[in-house]
């Protein structure tokens, strides 16, 4: 099942749909009719192209926005997200930096203090660890420490989490780390609409925003609604999206895990086991606990899914917040977290597969949770 979400060339329908149609065309069509895609005109876009349009549209609209990072200009982007931008906007606004994350991130933050709106790209978020002091101590905290006197309208973006076969130093998920910092906003798009809408929202947001993309999602195509194709399309930061309505159990996921969660939900519905509601967090900070609570009140069961490490992670935070909320009284079973394994990511493919959750793992956990009852 997980092979379905490998990087794909542009296809005429999303991969998930493909899998379903292959397995059970009749059920698939009826299920898909309930889904939240509102593609009227059938336009599809890869996540990469969605990000590219977001950058292009925002940079066209506001001269103060500029992009800097390694290989963003002449190379057209390490992952081609910034393709064509140097040609369109020129070297003043699309800047190739030396390999000095600490320095260029600090420079970007300083330029934001002084009135510009930088988009600071990290080739992967792993490399941003060199710059994390500037992100947290300079960008996130300064508005507060200055009593509101200094502003920092910066966007930090780049691929986060696991890729394929890149091992421990290149596979870490930073959602929990940045998600814990007051003064930052943190978003984690899954599909193309998320990517475009959240990146645009991040750039327009006058606060420092961390955008956690995913390399394996860059090449995946999704339908784009007419609204999403507009120059003013933004996705509200802090609002999760119910990708699939359900009644028996809530699955909360972010980024690539949303796709796996949807597949698992489809599978279990097909097997007649349960009707799962899948929530795409979209934002890590602020966390849309209201949507999660409302869903749990309806379904009475909750499973969280993420690619990051288990300890002190996004799922841990959701569990804690659910415990402290009215949703606790609505739980028929303990909340379960599905996470990356608590190991540095190994290289060998079989070991790597064991390090990150996929459809099968999620489905197994959902089944187990469905069988549990508090006190029983």
């Amino acid at each position, binding site marked *: 099942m997980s092979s379905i979400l490998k990087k794909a060339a542009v296809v005429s329908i999303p991969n998930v749909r493909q899998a379903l149609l292959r397995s059970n065309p009749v059920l698939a069509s009826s299920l898909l009719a309930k889904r939240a895609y509102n593609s009227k005109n059938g336009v599809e876009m890869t996540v990469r192209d969605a990000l590219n349009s977001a950058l292009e549209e925002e940079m066209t609209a506001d001269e103060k926005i500029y992009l800097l990072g390694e290989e963003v200009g002449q190379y057209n982007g390490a992952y081609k997200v910034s393709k064509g931008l140097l040609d369109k906007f020129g070297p003043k606004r699309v800047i190739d930096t*030396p390999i000095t994350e*600490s320095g260029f991130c*600090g*420079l*970007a*933050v300083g330029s934001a203090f002084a009135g510009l709106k930088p988009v600071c790209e990290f080739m992967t978020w792993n490399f941003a660890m060199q710059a994390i002091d500037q992100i947290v101590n300079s960008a996130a905290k300064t508005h507060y*420490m200055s*009593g509101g006197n200094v502003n920092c309208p910066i966007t930090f973006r780049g691929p986060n989490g696991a890729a394929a076969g890149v091992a421990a130093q290149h596979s870490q998920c930073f959602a929990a780390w940045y998600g814990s910092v007051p*003064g930052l906003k943190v978003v984690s798009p899954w599909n193309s609409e998320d990517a475009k809408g959240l990146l645009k929202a991040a750039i327009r947001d006058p606060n420092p925003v961390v955008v956690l993309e995913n390399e394996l999602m860059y090449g995946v195509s999704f339908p784009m609604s007419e609204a999403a194709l507009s120059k003013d399309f933004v996705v509200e930061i802090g609002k999760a999206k119910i990708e699939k309505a359900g009644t028996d159990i809530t699955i909360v996921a972010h980024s690539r895990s949303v796709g796996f969660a949807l597949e698992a939900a489809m599978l279990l519905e097909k097997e007649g086991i349960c009707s799962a509601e899948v929530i795409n967090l979209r934002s890590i900070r602020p966390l849309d606990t209201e949507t999660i609570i409302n869903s749990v009140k309806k379904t009475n069961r909750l499973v969280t899914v993420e690619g990051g490490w288990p300890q002190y992670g996004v799922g841990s935070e959701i569990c804690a917040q659910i415990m402290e909320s009215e949703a606790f009284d609505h739980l028929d079973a303990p909340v379960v977290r599905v996470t990356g394994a608590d190991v540095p990511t190994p290289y060998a493919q079989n070991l790597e597969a064991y390090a990150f959750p996929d459809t099968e793992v999620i489905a197994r956990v959902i089944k187990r949770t469905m069988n549990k009852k508090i006190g029983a």
Partner: protein
Amino acid sequence: MLSTQKISLAKVAAKAFITPLTIRTFASSAARNVSINLHEKSFESYNCEAPALDVEISKEELVRMYKSMVTMRRMEMASDGLYKAKLIRGFCHLCTGQEAVAVGMETALTAEDKIITAYRCHGFTYMRGGSITSILAELLGRKAGISGGKGGSMHMFTPNFFGGNGIVGAQVPLGAGIAFAQKYQGHKAATFSLYGDGASNQGQVFEAYNMAKLWELPAVFVCENNRYGMGTAANRSSANTSYFKRGDYIPGLKVNGMDVLAVHQAVAYAKEWTVSGKGPLLLEMETYRYGGHSMSDPGTTYRTREEIQHMRSNNDPITGLKQRLLEFNIITEDEMKAIDKAARVEVDQAVEEAKASGEPDISEFWTQIYQKGTGVPYVRGREPEEFHRY
């Protein structure tokens, strides 16, 4: 170490083979400008020309410089007292002895130029427009503080002064970024990013140098070398203590930072250098702090009292300027005493105002985490029942 020699007319004449008459001073009350010769050892250059040793400056400016330095020192001394009285908590890094740097810089710059420094920032905050009351109130953690009491000693800002930064070295790339913004927006101005001898070895400083040079930013990097990074003498932290040469491909200038006119001259030179399109420049200000690294450090375990006393007696920036003012008859001793007294009164009054200001409202606890109106729906406090909904 350079020493600001007492400049007497006779000595200058003897050295320079010029007669007293060629030193234009105050012939009539109509003559407003003074021409002062700096000591020949005021500058040492690296891959650039040193600025001229003769400084042309107005009497008013000289008096302003004096007043600023005296007031600044009073303000720092008041902070010292308030800290010992336990009214100031946490960190407090005083610039007593280093006044010439902040004052000399300000007089050579305009409001369009920007400055950023590290945590020894009270003097700069004052010169860049912060009132003494707001600075002292910030130290006391009061609502009249320049950051609303939420930042403290190390986090003071004005519209053209970016702090006040607590993480050693982090301010240098930030400063390069401010210069980047100036260039991007076509402003004919420069950004001065200051750091100490202790911070000079930070990797991010060199990353900032590289980008500033590569992109020809109007950035002036200023190493305030006060000889000690906390308790570590410069030669114990730095393999190369010629800080003005550390820019490698960036030209540099070493300056007697205890002489406010030398600082003024060097900064004017540096601004002209960068704004005219020559790219970044490095300045090293040789200066000295009489106090310890901070109020928690007596400052005598790693240097001798004799050294401190020697600097106070022979190199004090205020005394040095005072001597010039008297030599050139800019103002009289009585006028000077009046300025001293007025400064004391001003600072004493500011202390009272600062003390009278209350602590910030508890409502401010929850504000300014994000820009007003663009934040999160609510913020959690210490426990679930303690939260703030916007």
